[in-house]
């Protein structure tokens, strides 16, 4: 088994695909109170590509994901050092309007969490809170988003019905539609398929694949097969450290570290 002391020095130059980086995480550390959860993370995330974060439970991958849209702000006693940049701007910039930051970043959660409203209102929620109320704009955004989430044909006749009447897989696709309705640059997905059956999972993976080229997608997953199927770039985390990052195919076929090798071959985690 791995001992934290045997781990290599924090990964400083991850090997990446060529292309412009959309998100760059630089020397990022995070503490819950006095416990350090993330240790000196350095990772560029490619624009319009799909990046997956893998690693055993508690390795900090979700924490890092939620640091990108500053959802961790909701938790008391969090402190960070280092920086995360989206484009040229730091998300931890002083006087940054967090809500406008989050409007540029869509997020899909582990458990589907539609609002207790109609399907229509769920999808146009990001627009409504931005103060958009023109019917034609909302209608168009709802249709486009639902089509992108492959849900339009299933719900187009019952847009006014409660979103809670949908099945689990449909609810998760609705959440994806909601996340992209505001036309964000980045889409964060926190284990989006962990509560779904294989068929729904396949549908969502298909959707994620279609996002390539439109959004910068970061997906946290427990399923290594999912990571290898959908992502272009993979980052492996262990005990709050980034162990290895690189093109997905390379990382799975010839990992550089023993820890990665052990994890992807299922020897721990």
């Amino acid at each position, binding site marked *: 088994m791995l001992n934290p002391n045997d781990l290599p020095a924090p990964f400083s130059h991850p090997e990446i695909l060529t292309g412009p980086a959309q998100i760059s995480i630089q020397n990022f550390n995070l503490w819950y109170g006095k416990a350090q959860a993330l240790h000196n993370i350095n990772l560029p995330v490619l624009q319009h590509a799909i990046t997956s974060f893998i690693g055993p439970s508690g390795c900090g991958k979700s924490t890092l994901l939620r640091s990108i*849209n500053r*959802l961790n702000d*909701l938790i008391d006693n969090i402190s960070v050092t280092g920086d995360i940049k989206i484009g040229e701007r730091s998300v931890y910039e002083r006087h940054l309007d967090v*809500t*406008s*930051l*989050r*409007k*540029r*970043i*869509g*997020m899909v*959660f582990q*458990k589907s*969490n*539609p*609002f*207790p*409203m*109609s399907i229509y*209102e769920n999808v146009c*929620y*990001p627009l*409504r*809170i*931005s103060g958009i109320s023109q019917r034609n704009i909302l209608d168009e955004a709802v249709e486009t988003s639902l089509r992108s989430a492959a849900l339009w044909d299933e719900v187009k006749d019952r847009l*006014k*019905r*409660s979103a*809670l*009447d949908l099945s689990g897989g449909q609810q998760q696709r609705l*959440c994806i539609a*909601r*996340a992209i309705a*505001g036309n964000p640059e980045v889409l964060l997905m926190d284990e989006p398929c962990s509560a779904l059956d294989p068929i729904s999972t396949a549908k969502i993976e298909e959707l994620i694949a279609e996002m390539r080229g439109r959004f910068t997608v970061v997906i946290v997953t427990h399923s290594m097969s999912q990571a290898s199927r959908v992502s272009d770039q993979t980052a492996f985390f262990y005990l709050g450290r980034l162990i290895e990052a690189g093109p997905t195919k390379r990382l799975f076929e010839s990992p550089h570290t023993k820890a990665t090798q052990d994890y992807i071959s299922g020897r721990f985690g």
Partner: protein
Amino acid sequence: MFGSSKMKSDSQSLSNGAPKPSVLFKTAVRIRSKAHSNATEGVPWIWVCAGALVTILLLIAGMFGIIIAQGISALWPKSVIQLQHDSQTVVGMSMRTEDSENTETGQPESKVLVYQANRDFGMNEFAFVPAAKIGTSDKPAQIWFAERAEWGPFIGRIVSPESAGAADLNAGQVKDLIGSAAVRYKEIKALEKGPLADLNTDIEELRLKKRATERHLELGELSAAEASAKISAIENQLSDLQTKHASVSEKVQTLRAADEAVKATLIAPNGQTKTLPASQLLNAYLPNQLSVPEKIGIFMSRLWSFVSDEPREANTEGGVFPALFGTVAMTLFMTMAVLPVGVMSAVYMREIAQQGTLVSLLRIAVNNLAGVPSIVYGIFGVGFFCYTVGVSVDQLFFQDKLPNPTFGTGGILWASLTLSLLTVPVVIVSTEEALSAVPRSLREASYGCGATRMQTLWNIVLPKAVPGVMTGLILAMARAVGEVAPLLMTGVVKLAPALPVDGHFPFFHLERSFMHLGFHIYDLGFQSRSTELSRPMVFASTSLLVGVVLLLNFVAIKIRSQLRKRFEGRGAF
């Protein structure tokens, strides 16, 4: 193959060496005791818990059963019996039998309590008849039971005044008599409550205007010439109105005189007679000639007049409409006051304030507030609302009516506000619980879309918490409807001259004192001339109060389940 061979061997063993019954019995006992020790462990505890629940249910069912049964029997038309004892005749309604000791002999004896009514015929309303001494007992057919506007009910004969005592009026004649009197009564009431009441209001308004002008003159805000011009204009209007008032009153007087000319003569069982205007008789029936459907009809009409009429005879007769109205109106005003304040406080404590020692202390304080005796709130209400806020309001806005207080005394507004103080902890606590039960994932979804804290609160958290808030509101209403002690000081009265809501501008008269069912019950039960006399009304009013509480709760629960449906799927928006 296996099964059949085994069955065969079993049947052989049964037929060959069948075990004796005692052995079978022992086996059964052993199996049962084994089962007892393993599978049904803790059975006595289950029985104790179930017993506790059943006891409570029986007590509650018994309480409602007694109250409602007594309430129904108060309105049910009873038959009139005629008892002979010791050469005396007692006519009346048998109320109940009481066991007691004879004061002279010390022997136990039972007495029948008979309600004789006829207070103004030189008779006792109630008579105790020793059961042992009753000679004959029968139910005379031709005996009337009549409710009257004054002096309570009458039991006896109704005859026409011209041929006094000669012949009883038949049922149709009595019905006509009462029916035509009711028409005339309605006509008079329509005049009194319509034009006459309007004129009175206008005259009062003008009088206040005149006083205000006089006050302005004293303060030097008006010159003498202006003031006198104004006053003379007002006086002109006033005299005009007074002429109108006089003509309407005269009309009323004429109608009254015509009404009183139609008379009926009552003959009590003791032979005394009394001739009175027919309109004094509100309804009358022959209790011993009623079929069951007729009895049900009379019961229904009495039930209707009980909830829709005003009280008579110091509240011991007639209806309870003003009390019912006051109870419901006060509860609704209280709800309107408590809901926004309670919800906003809870939102601040749970969603906005920094959680820490101060908020924890505040929370404990709010919880403790729910345990403060209601009389304390009453004292606070009268001291703060009536005598501090109310008096200031009077001095600022109702100067012309002083020294008569408007808001500076008890009224439905102050009573509602006092009760909302009393119930606000309940609303705060349940709202806080509802807010904390809103899943974190929903808030995160909203924040993740870029919503601000206020947008999240308003669009996601509050709607989701509404059913929980409704639970708090139901509890608050249930407590407020039943509360009497704080009302005693803050505006409830035995008999209110006018309802707090009526057709005169501004329609809601929140300064008015009001009647309340809870206080009505207390007043009837403990403050009336005769507890025996008011007993049926006490039970009927109590049943009604229980009914009002159940109805209000039912409505609130219905609304809540509708909302729940909406927020938990299976419903359209």
